[in-house]
């Protein structure tokens, strides 16, 4: 009898989060923790949007995209804030999710940039220059089509293989594997995605070798400061007609950003079975 109850308890415990029956009544929004600022310092604008414009009951912060998706999957939260590319990846890989839009919401943009140490201004300018060239000659569009659009459409892209140049400087790029289709690991364990492809292309244009190190997304700023990596990927939210100003909010101290190589529309992915999707 004892054994029967033990097995029953294990079954209940293991199945409860799986089918999302805890979801009822929970309608919080998942957000990625801002890395450079505390929750209290979040700007009032965001708080206003969260509490007055969006229909969510509250918000929860997550350190990694992965944990946020886990919470979304299990129904702990009703929706997440992300950008159009990640949302596309979610829609193409999971069933039961919808996009939430409201006219009351101002259109925000996410900008994808590279973050460097403050003293590396020269390297930053060279990278920004390479990005500008890539924008001009259509390379960025080609990479985006291959690594974002095709990937969302279900085609598994091939990872770009960096060329090794003898005697050249090495650009150490931190990847997190935590933001498909921008930055993730392919099934055979190689870093892949738009960000990595971009890093390979940039290094190639600068005549540098590229080396990827895998860093937890929460440890990106530390990795940069301790020189474990020269470049990390950083996304900033805001008004990209004036990107230098927009980036101030959650940028770690003693760092500089390159010009965004890609911008996307901020959007909300919600569970189809949640009260928010039903509205």
């Amino acid at each position, binding site marked *: 009898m004892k054994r029967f109850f033990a097995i029953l308890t294990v079954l209940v415990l*293991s199945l409860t*989060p*799986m089918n999302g029956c805890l979801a009822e009544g929970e309608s919080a929004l998942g957000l990625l923790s801002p890395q450079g600022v505390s929750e209290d310092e979040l700007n009032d604008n965001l708080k206003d949007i969260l509490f007055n414009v969006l229909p969510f009951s509250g918000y929860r912060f997550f350190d*990694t*995209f*992965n*944990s946020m*998706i*886990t919470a979304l*999957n*299990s129904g702990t939260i009703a929706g997440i804030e992300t950008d159009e590319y990640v949302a596309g*990846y*979610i829609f193409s*890989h*999971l*069933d039961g999710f919808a996009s939430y839009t409201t006219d009351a919401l101002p259109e925000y943009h996410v900008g994808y940039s590279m973050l460097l140490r403050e003293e590396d201004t020269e390297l930053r300018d060279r990278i920004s220059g390479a990005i500008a060239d890539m924008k001009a000659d259509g390379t960025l569009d080609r990479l985006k089509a291959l690594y974002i659009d095709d990937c969302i459409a279900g085609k*598994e892209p091939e990872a770009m293989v960096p060329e090794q140049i003898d005697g050249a400087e090495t650009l150490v790029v*931190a990847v997190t*594997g*935590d*933001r*498909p289709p921008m930055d*993730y*690991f*392919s*099934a*055979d*364990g190689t870093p892949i995605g738009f960000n990595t492809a971009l890093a390979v292309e940039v290094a190639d244009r600068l005549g540098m070798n590229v080396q990827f*190190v*895998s*860093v*937890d997304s*929460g*440890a990106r700023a*530390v*990795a940069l*400061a*301790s*020189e*474990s990596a020269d470049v990390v990927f950083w996304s900033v939210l805001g008004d990209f007609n004036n990107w230098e100003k927009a980036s101030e909010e959650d940028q770690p101290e003693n760092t500089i950003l390159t010009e965004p190589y890609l911008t996307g529309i901020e959007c909300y992915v919600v569970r189809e079975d949640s009260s928010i999707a039903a509205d």
Partner: protein
Amino acid sequence: MSLSDKLYKILIQGGSWKTILGGLWVTIQISALALVLGTVLGAVICLLRTRKNPVARGIASVYIAILRGTPVLMLLLLLYYGVFARANLNPVTVAVFTFALNVSAHVAELLRSALEAADHGQAEAARTLGFSAWDTFRIITLPQVLRIAKPVYQSTIVNLIQWTSVVGYVTITDLTRVINNTASRTMQPLLTICIGMLIYLALSYIVFGLFALTDKMKKRGGETA
């Protein structure tokens, strides 16, 4: 998507099982090396801790107190991003060193408590009978210490394996990291994490099994002797 489709995506597609095994191998390597190094270091610390010299004893006590009383992840971050940041060391080396330090404190304490639990009367009797100090330790005390320490040592090993799951913070792709990467790619975190837990569970049971095996072999050896 059916369960078998999900499992196929997580475990098979594109050779992802090889990546998972690769991560498992990194976990095993770090655990095994840290265990060997930590056990040796722990024995030395235990030796210091049980000296009559108050300085040696003090140093060992502080060492044990600090390492047992702080999270190993903090130590790992401190060593990798702080102390050895400019040393250009392989992250796996730093991780092995960190976990060896942590395990050594635990091993030192478990050896000390086993030493205290061993029957002192027997050792005294042996000395009276003319055994040298070393022979007394080797023949009388050590077998008792090993027997008493064994169950705790076994759980120290299993704990160590689980603690190593934080090495993803210092650019190492271990089993936990591979599981997280796979979860992100496939967007199936719950199932992937369950698979990861099963692998850790299997690893722990292999350790328990090995210890049970040595017990059995000893018993058999005892019967024939």
